[in-house]
């Protein structure tokens, strides 16, 4: 049980997919304009990560080593299709906002990375908690980045104006702002890590 909790918590801070493993930056850069988009993307990716990790760890003994990547992709694509269709059905606004980046979860480095690096070597239970922790870490990172970007770029948070008279800094709503915020946050977290050791 203790190891399971450890698998779960490591994805949140110690091995955070965005800030420590630096995986999945493409959707992070693209969808982190507003917090709502960030949460939606995070939940979709967590769902896919959870499903694919569990299935991969269950059938890892039946997959021949040479064709494992195509097999992972088929499994991941199945879950992405489920996520995309449910999003289209229940939240068309979010689906339009995220656009191509929902189908692109198929090739998200985090999902494939966890399947290749963790789920294919570990039991179902630990893969489940690993996927959950990684998904949560990704979601939290997205919320942090998109929170900063939405507040600075449009003066709002989740669509609510916070400070009256605040002149929004447009650049944070643009792709260059995403690179800037992620770069500075990466530097900040590395600084914290270096100071600890």
């Amino acid at each position, binding site marked *: 049980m203790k190891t399971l909790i450890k698998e779960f918590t490591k994805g949140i801070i110690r091995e955070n997919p965005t800030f420590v493993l630096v995986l999945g930056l493409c959707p992070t850069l693209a969808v982190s304009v507003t917090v709502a988009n960030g949460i939606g993307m995070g939940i979709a990716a967590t769902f896919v990560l959870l499903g694919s990790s569990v299935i991969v760890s269950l059938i890892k003994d039946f997959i021949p080593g040479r064709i494992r990547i195509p097999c992972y992709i088929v499994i991941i694509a199945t879950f992405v299709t489920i996520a995309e269709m449910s999003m289209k059905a229940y939240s068309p606004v979010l689906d339009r906002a995220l656009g191509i980046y929902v189908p692109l979860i198929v090739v998200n480095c985090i999902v494939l990375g966890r399947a290749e690096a963790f789920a294919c070597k570990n039991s179902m239970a630990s893969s489940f908690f690993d996927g959950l922790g990684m998904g949560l870490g990704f979601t939290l990172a997205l919320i942090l980045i998109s929170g900063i970007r939405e507040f600075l770029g449009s003066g709002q948070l989740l669509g609510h104006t916070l400070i009256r008279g605040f*002149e929004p*800094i*447009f*650049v944070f709503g*643009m792709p260059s702002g995403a690179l*800037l915020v992620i770069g*500075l946050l990466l*530097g900040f977290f590395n600084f914290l890590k270096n100071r600890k050791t």
Partner: protein
Amino acid sequence: MRNNLIVSGSPHIHKKASVSRIMWTVVLSTIPAGIAGVIIFGLDALWVILAATIAAVSTEWAFELITKRKVTILDGSAVITGILLAYNLPSGAPLWLPVVGAIFSIIVGKAVFGGLGQNIFNPALVGRVFLMASWPKYMTTFPKPFSYDAVTSATPLAALKEGKLLEHIPYLDLFLGNRGGCIGEVCILALLIGAAILLFKGYITWHIPVTYILTTALFIYVFGAKQFFHGDWLFHILSGGLILGAFFMATDYVATPLTIKGQVIFGLGCGLITAVIRLWGGYPEGVSYAILMMNAATPFIDRYTRARIYGT
């Protein structure tokens, strides 16, 4: 008896030039353009320059205090960043604009890379481009010269881009600065006086500015009009921030190539990008983007123009 024969390694010949000496000379050389800006746009321009400079220096001081580094505000580099940033702003800007720009210049343009000597981009231009992308409304509202109130006018280049340049502005007006524009870029005469100081002192060489300006002029002359070889190259040299950029920002020691060959390539690249943005780009002016892009290319230029070691 003390031994005065000190044996030491080379270099044996020293020049008095030091970082702070050079930087303060650069500050001195920018003063004519600042005076011209204040005369042309009134006291508003002075407040913008002061706000940017004070903000730049105090940001550097605060950052170095917080991160427990050596405080280097007296070497003049933060002062020059603040001044050059202010010269790239319209005089009618609200005063928080130069302050935010200077903070961004120092922190993101310089400090995060490790301070002076480590920055890959010209800090003042980083600040300007940040402000341009963030608050285009304030960055493209230019007060009319010699009106000293809220009357605004487009810059010659912006008017040209929108096809509104109906009458021909006399070259002498452009040269002396009787036109809309940023504080430090309008008076070419004052800028050339400052540039002459730097060239005379040997703190900058002619390679980057001259190749930069000539490339822009040539490209505009060839492609600038509907017919080939009919472009108004003199107008393009005298308007916009070309002279300010070529002499004061494209010659930044840190972010430009080391060898003469590299500097010529740097100048050519800047000129080409400036001319392309001015003629076909979305913005009326491209000097800041051209210099920043070539700053980014500087490590590669340096790698391919490395001098041959003697004897190999």
